């Protein structure tokens, strides 16, 4: 699953909608550093934007922990979004395209999953949600 050893790590707080912009900028900077293609950069930044917004809107804020990871010869970027919100009661439903608990389009989770190589949700009702995603180079 979302394995690999972390070579370096950075944490970005997510407390308001400007922080989601910072999340996008930091992920873009790391994607550039890893020399991802423009399409791959766009995919990981878009996924980060969706997940960062979820952390803010549904989790009431939290943070993103970004790591440069290595697994054998592969290198990639791992993003871990953590909030202490209400959690996701039905994971299968939450991942369905078109399902939304807020006023959105319901593309955030399912869409981000398609944009990344690895995707893992850990959510307990009442104690928050952690979503970990990886995009390998």
């Amino acid at each position, binding site marked *: 699953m979302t394995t690999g050893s972390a070579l370096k790590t950075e944490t970005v707080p997510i407390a308001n*909608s*400007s922080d*989601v*912009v910072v999340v*996008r*900028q930091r992920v*873009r900077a790391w994607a550039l550093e890893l020399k991802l293609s*423009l*399409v791959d*950069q*766009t*995919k990981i*930044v*878009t996924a980060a*934007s*969706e997940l960062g*917004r979820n952390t803010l809107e549904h989790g009431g804020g939290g943070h993103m922990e970004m790591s440069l990871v290595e697994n054998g010869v592969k290198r990639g970027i791992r993003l871990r979004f953590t909030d202490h919100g209400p959690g996701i009661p039905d994971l299968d439903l939450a991942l369905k*395209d078109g399902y939304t608990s807020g006023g*959105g*389009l319901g*593309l*955030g989770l*399912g*869409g*981000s999953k*398609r*944009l990344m190589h690895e995707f893992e949700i850990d959510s307990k009702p009442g104690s928050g949600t952690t979503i970990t995603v990886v995009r390998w180079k």
Partner: protein
Amino acid sequence: MERIPILRMGSYLLVTIQVDMHDKLALTLQDDLTERISSVNAKGVLIDISSLEIVDSFIGRTLANIASMARVLDAETVVVGMQPAVAITLVELGMSLPGIRTALNVESGMEYLRETVGSREESDDDDGLSTED
């Protein structure tokens, strides 16, 4: 408060989004544009997103909302200049922006607006439905 400028050229409104928009800024643009369409009686809206490095579901939805609101206010909207990497990502995300007219660049976007708005004004004259008296 931070705002995205809206330029007026005749009966058209032009917007170039050059900043990485946070969600509130996108909503402000939506409000400002609908307000301006109504106050200047605009017939066409052109939104240039060539500087946008990503379009996520929120920005996509805001663009779709702007186009729908403009249509209700009797104006056409065209979104121009989407970068190829943005288009690829947007479709993979699951958004194909239905209901939004797009063009590759500002020139073809303006051409589309002139044709659409122009032909609509002609047909209004023909069927006589737009007579005020």
